[in-house]
């Protein structure tokens, strides 16, 4: 059933673009689907998202209150408490399920901040030559050098501990990597003839950056984003373990902090120690695998590795 010239509907430029993007997305998804590790990662992420969304249905928020806990102190797993209890008699399983929320929220929100800053700085420093681009490049290099955790600790101490502050701290300390990646990509896009065409036709800086550079940089940023989420979740765990997280919310990091402080190690309470850590490993590994699979789809050079 071939479509003749007369039958074909007249499409606006925007519709043509949209159709082309849809075809490209379908092709990418088919390539992604052929990678088992990436699919497995996606499945694990799906499970964690479901856990986070339905946490209140599985365990009532009252189970997280120290004052309403009825279990024994550091009891090993039993029928009533499949993963045992913590030092205040709360169910470790309930804590782990609720902890999923903080990890996912912080991981995703911090990544949004980091990616937005990184992309803006990266594109601007690649697009504008001269002193403006130079200053942005220097700034990126400087922040890249400062070791992440000491900087995050300093910022978190200065700002005080709350969920929003943890997100902000991780977001504003992890952008330089994205910025450098985007800058390199921007430079290679800027050298192509169609940007020269856009310039000659009188396209302004804003037009060039949003219509030509950004769409070309986006796929790479997307793959990088999944890897950034993994790092952000690890960072949240570390900051919470150091006591810099939100003191009123249960997260996997704060569970590990409590386990460490309450002597779970010397009393051999493996049921308190293992679940939050294994969850971190599972979710971080899942994001990493998805990110690597996306890189393989988008960057043919990576596929050969």
């Amino acid at each position, binding site marked *: 059933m071939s479509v003749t010239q007369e039958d074909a509907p007249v499409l606006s430029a925007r519709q043509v673009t949209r159709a082309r993007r849809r075809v490209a997305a379908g092709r990418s998804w088919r390539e992604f689907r052929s990678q088992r590790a990436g699919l497995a990662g996606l499945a694990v992420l799906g499970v964690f998202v479901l856990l986070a969304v339905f946490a209140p249905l599985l365990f009532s928020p009252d189970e997280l209150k120290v004052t309403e806990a009825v279990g024994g102190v550091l009891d090993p797993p039993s029928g009533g408490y499949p993963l045992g209890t913590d030092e205040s008699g709360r169910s470790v399983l309930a804590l782990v399920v609720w902890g999923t929320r903080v990890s996912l929220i912080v991981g995703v929100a911090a990544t949004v901040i980091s990616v937005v800053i990184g992309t803006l700085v990266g594109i601007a420093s690649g697009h504008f030559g001269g002193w403006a681009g130079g200053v942005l490049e220097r700034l990126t290099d400087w922040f890249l050098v400062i070791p992440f955790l000491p900087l995050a600790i300093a910022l978190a101490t200065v700002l005080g501990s709350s969920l929003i502050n943890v997100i902000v701290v991780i977001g504003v300390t992890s952008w330089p990597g994205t910025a450098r990646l985007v800058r390199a990509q921007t430079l290679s896009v800027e050298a192509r003839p169609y940007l020269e065409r856009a310039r000659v036709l009188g396209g302004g800086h804003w037009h060039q950056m949003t219509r030509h550079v950004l769409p070309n940089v986006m796929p790479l940023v997307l793959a990088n984003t999944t890897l950034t989420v993994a790092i952000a979740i690890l960072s949240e765990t*570390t900051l919470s373990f150091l006591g810099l997280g939100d003191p009123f919310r249960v997260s996997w990091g704060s569970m590990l902090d409590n386990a460490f402080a309450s002597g779970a190690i010397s009393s*051999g309470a493996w049921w308190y120690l293992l679940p939050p850590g294994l969850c971190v490993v599972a979710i971080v590994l899942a994001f990493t695998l998805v990110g690597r699979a996306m890189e393989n789809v988008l960057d043919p050079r990576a596929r050969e590795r």
Partner: protein
Amino acid sequence: MSSSPPWGERVAGYAVRRVLTGVGTMVFVLVFNFFLFRLLPGDPISLYTRGRNMDREQLRELRRELNRPVGEQFLAYLANPFSSGVDSTQFSRPVWDVIGDYVWPTLVLLVTATALSAAIGIAIGIKGGWRRGSTFDRTSTGVTLTLYAMPEFWLGMVLLILFSTGVWVFPGVFPSGGTLTPGIEPWSLEGILDQAWHLALPALTLTLAYLAEYALVMRSSLVDETRQDYLVTARAKGLMDKLVRRRHAVPNALLPTITLVFLNIGFVVSGAITVETVFSWPGLGLLSYQAIRGPDIPLLQAIFLLFSLAVVVANIVADVVVAAVDPRVRT
């Protein structure tokens, strides 16, 4: 080749320029460190003294120090960035004095862990990258990615519960923390062995945590190298596979990994903070943890500065060393 300057001149010129940009970075770190801790919202006195009993004279002293003009404080800070007028609130001693005692344990731990993880990681990366897709390659990539996903302090706690407390079939034979069993002479034969025994678990934790990245980078740069024409030439002239790998591919693929060993100092330092805490290893990491829990702002400020400057210096060294050994680096 004849037009390029001789090796010594090239490297020296590059080193000078690299040190100059490094100094620029250091100035940025110094200024940033000063103002970062002055962004404190509210009354700084209450944050400096939270959870601490100070007599009125000490408070007045602290307030006088913080009430000086910012410019004056900044100049005093530049004169000696590591003890800017205010003593450590936890130790009630100048910050620089406190830090000195904690440097050596951290150096011992980090150097041991970095050397071990680089050696093991590179070996794994070479074996996997040379036979890409083999069972060893797939297993080692899986294991290293899992290690990469682990919070290193959690790994430390798991090792502690297995080999220090001892659960299930695991023997609790290792000490749970510190550097030395009390009552043993540190520098006798017994003391040195005892210290090594204490070092074992924290060093193992950090080695496992770090080796993942070295293995992954070594593997991918060796894979890149295997597609180069000069390897075809090496094989075509009849060289054994083992020799092609050892004499041609590996030396070229090593450079990115070696650079990474230096560039990773920032990452290494981050690991030290939590792992030293878990193992009560009396180094700068444990000191940072105590400073956070205080919070001991002057101490935190000095530690942040020390870590940042260490990373800047390591970066300069890495760049100059790589430029010196690798003629491909544009200088």
